[in-house]
Structures are given as C-alpha cells and as structure tokens.
C-alpha cells in the first residue's frame, strides 16, 4: 500500500492550476485570466497538504499566516510587502443592543495598511505577478484599490499605474498620488475606466492589472477575510454574514474560505447564510436577486457609495449562486440610510467606516426589519474601509459648529444650550 503523497509547494505555493468557473476547462498557472474556450473567469485550484490550526496560529499576524491557502511563493512573508490583514473582529454589543440582536461582530478592515480590505488582494496579486514575471502593477479602481496598489508597489519597489474615474473623493485621489506612481484620472464611470484597462491589459504584456489579467490570484486574497473571521471566532463559522457587493468577488471568496476551512477539517460544518449589501444607486445584483434571475443586467451607477459603484459586476452571477445556496439574500439601501448606518456604527462602536460600511449596516437593519436576518443568530458584518476617505458623506454632522470664547462662562452658556439635546445614537 502506498503512503498518501504529501504535495510539495511550487513557485506559487500549493496552487496547482487554473480552472474555468464556467466550463471547467483547466490550464496552467500563469496562462491568462479568461478561459480560452468560453471567456469564463479562471479560478486558482490547489493541491493542498494537511494543515492544522496550530500551524496557522504560529504564523505571522497578517494574511501570510494563510499563505499555504494562497497562490503565492512560499517565501512571500519575507519579501517587502505591506503585511495586510489580521484586522480586528470587534464584538459590537452596543450596536447589537440598538438593533435587538443577540451577538454581532464587525470585521473592521480599516486596520489594513491603506485602510481597506484591498491591501489583502493586492498583496496576493503582487506576489503572484512578480513571480510570473510582470514588471508593472496596475489597476482600474474606484479608489481604495488605487491606494492599495500604489502603496504596495512603492513598498516592493516596482512601478505602478493606477486608473480612476476623475470624480472620485479627493481623499482617495490624494491617497493614491502620494505614493508616487503614475495616476491616471479618466473622464467617465468606473465601468468606463475598467473597459480602458481591459483593452490596455491586452496590449501591455508585462503589466499586471491586478483585477483584470491577474484577477484569478488577486481575488483569492479576499479569502483571508473569511479565514480570519473563523479563526477569530475560535475556529467557528458565524451563522450569518453580511458582505458589501461591488464586483461581488469579496462575498464569493468569503464563502469559498468557509468551505475550504470545512474541507480541511479546520472548522466544523455549521450552516451559515451569506447576505450581500448594495447601494440602491447601484444595485444590479440585488435587482437580479429580487427578480429571481441568475444573470445580472448592468446599470449606470449613481450613489455616494463610490467604492461599490460598479454597474457591471464581474462576480454578480456567483454572488447570486452563493446567497441562494446558503439561504441568504441581496438587498440595497438608499443614500440616506447609508449615512445613517455610518453614523450608527461610529456612535455605537467607535468605528468610522466608509460609505460601504454604511451600506452593509444599512442592509443589516433593513433585513432585520424585514424578518430576513435572524436577530438571535450570531452575525458578522464587514466594514470594508475607512470613513476618513469618504468624509463628504457625513460632512453634515459637523455643521452648525460655532466656536466659543476660551472662558468658563462661555462654556457654561454652551452647556446650558445643549440641555435636552444630548448627543446619542441617532
């Protein structure tokens, strides 16, 4: 009897090949990003060795503790990188009380190096791209990705080219420019920028557009959010999770992470439900979910949640698959509810999330009110980014702030005028 063969790592760790998510055709690592047969998206497949909780727990406090489950060189943690991940999972008891929930957690992605979850996917894309011989790190972006690519390229010492819609928040434009790479502002929507990048990616053979031609590797980075949530819960899966949906890749990969942990015996198979959150001004996946479609009709976005303003979401069909398989839903909330959500998260838990965080919390409230989300089931919501990058959305909170004289009497006068106007949650 032969002993089971333990896989050895290759240049991209335990990643073994790429497989088409549509037709199943397989191809070698590094050979493109779309299926040569049907244009379908390619996904990384692995030949994994046995893994233990202990070996992961002994790893670094970053996404590299899960390096064996990512398409990256085995020595990735020792190369110059931004070391993203291992962000806080915050037990949100005040928010839970406000919402009438039993147990609620916030996965707070502000803790990443450029303050959004994008640092995770970029770190994985960069490591794979360098190994595959690419020379330039590039992306079309709604802002957070631009920040992450520019920073990661600076840290790794390679050139970056980031392309953004010209109407982005000023904070995100400056937060990309400061890193010194090439910043290209495009007149048009994200979908227009994305199209331009897709055409460029076709001609620039040594440019790694992280979310285009190295997307199979890039997208795998989002699994680390799911891995961390499970590990931080004590190697358990939550009963419900609410994830913001832009391209939809994050939601799909969180689900993939949970399934991988179960398959590896690292977490017990407990039923979980996945919910997707969109802004009403850009809700093509929520619309398809409500209509019972398994395909997504593109829309032209108009929402303050610019990081979620992708009208033509790459992973939309797969989001629908995941939420339907797990008994979840996709819903959307209007801009006012997004702002309310941002304020509520800040005032109850001290977390100033970006507009996307307001979308996620807004959808949680909506689905609780509709009786879709169970208030007694343990729930995790993802705050994917930083409120300081989307200040305009909540600029109104500081209106009417008049300065007082630096005297006790002026303060006393102010204090008496505040009576009955106690600052509290909403």
């Amino acid at each position, binding site marked *: 009897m032969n002993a089971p063969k333990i896989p050895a790592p290759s240049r991209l760790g335990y990643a073994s090949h790429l497989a088409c998510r*549509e037709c199943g055709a397989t191809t070698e690592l590094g050979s493109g*990003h779309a299926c040569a047969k049907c244009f379908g998206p390619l996904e990384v497949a692995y030949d994994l060795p046995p893994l233990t909780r202990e070996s992961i727990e002994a790893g670094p406090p970053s996404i590299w503790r899960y390096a064996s489950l990512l398409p990256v060189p085995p020595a990735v943690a020792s190369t110059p990188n931004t070391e993203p991940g291992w962000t806080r999972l915050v037990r949100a008891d005040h928010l839970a009380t406000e919402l009438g929930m039993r147990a609620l957690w916030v996965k707070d992605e502000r803790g990443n190096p450029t303050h959004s979850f994008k640092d995770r996917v970029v770190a994985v894309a960069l490591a794979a791209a360098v190994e595959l011989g690419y020379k330039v790190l590039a992306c079309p972006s709604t802002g957070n990705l631009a920040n992450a690519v520019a920073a990661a390229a600076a840290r790794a010492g390679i050139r970056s080219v980031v392309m953004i819609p010209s109407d982005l928040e000023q904070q995100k434009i400056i937060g990309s420019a400061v890193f010194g790479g090439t910043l290209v502002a495009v007149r048009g929507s994200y979908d227009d920028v994305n199209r331009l990048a897709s*055409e460029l990616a076709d001609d620039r053979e040594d440019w790694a557009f992280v*979310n285009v031609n190295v997307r199979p590797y890039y997208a795998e980075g989002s699994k680390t959010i799911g891995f961390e949530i499970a590990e931080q819960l004590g190697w358990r899966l939550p009963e419900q999770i609410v994830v913001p949906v832009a391209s939809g890749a994050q939601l799909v990969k969180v689900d993939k992470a949970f399934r991988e942990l179960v398959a590896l015996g690292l977490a017990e198979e407990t039923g979980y439900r996945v919910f997707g959150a969109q802004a009403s001004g850009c809700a093509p996946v929520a619309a398809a979910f409500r209509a019972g479609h398994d395909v997504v009709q593109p829309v032209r976005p108009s929402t303050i949640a610019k990081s979620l303003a992708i009208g033509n979401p*790459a992973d*939309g069909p797969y989001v629908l698959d995941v939420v339907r398989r797990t008994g979840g839903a996709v819903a959307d909330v209007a801009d006012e509810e997004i702002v309310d959500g941002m304020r509520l998260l800040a005032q109850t838990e001290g977390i100033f999330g970006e507009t996307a965080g307001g979308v996620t919390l807004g959808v949680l409230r909506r689905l609780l009110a509709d009786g879709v989300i169970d208030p007694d089931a343990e729930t995790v919501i993802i705050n994917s980014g930083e409120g300081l990058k989307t200040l305009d959305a909540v600029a109104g909170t500081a209106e009417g702030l008049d300065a007082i004289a630096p005297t006790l009497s002026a303060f006393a006068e102010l204090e008496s005028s505040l009576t009955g106007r106690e600052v509290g949650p909403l």
Partner: protein
Amino acid sequence: MSVSVRIPTILRTYTGGSAEVTAEPGTLREVIAGLDAAYPGIGGRIIDDTGNLRRFVNVYVGEEDVRFAEGLDTQVAAGSRVSVIPAVAGGADRPAGR
C-alpha cells in the same frame, strides 16, 4: 464603407494575429456572422449555443455597451467601431429575458 472590429488577444488565433479586422455593417448579429464567415469559429466564441452573447464577453459599438442598447440587434453603422472585450474584470450577462 465597412465597420472595424477590435479583436482581443484571446481571439487573435482566429484572425492570424490581427488585432483589428473589418466587416460589413448591419446588426451586431450580422456583423458577427460576417466575421465567422471570414474567420471560421470566431462567432461561436462570442455567441453561445443558444444564440445569445456569452456571459463573459462584453461588446461595444462605439462607446456603447450593447447590453445598454439592443444587444445582438444593435445596429452597427458603416464607419463605426466594434470592440470585443473579455469581461473578466467587469463581467456581465445578457440582459434578463433576452
């Protein structure tokens, strides 16, 4: 006057490596049929077995995503430009019900 069609790398094996080819004007469906006559097999890579645009290909006539226009019935006038782009990054599906 003909129309120009931009061919993505992944389909250039059909066009002998050409990044841009020409076709006769008409509906997008007719343009693609014309392409397939000139470069046998390429049509099946853009349109699936049921006669719809494949889920993961985006087609633009000029600046317009045809999914915002009339899909395969979109008119492609003489002198206009068609772009075929893999949709991996900005994936899309055919409009529901079409």
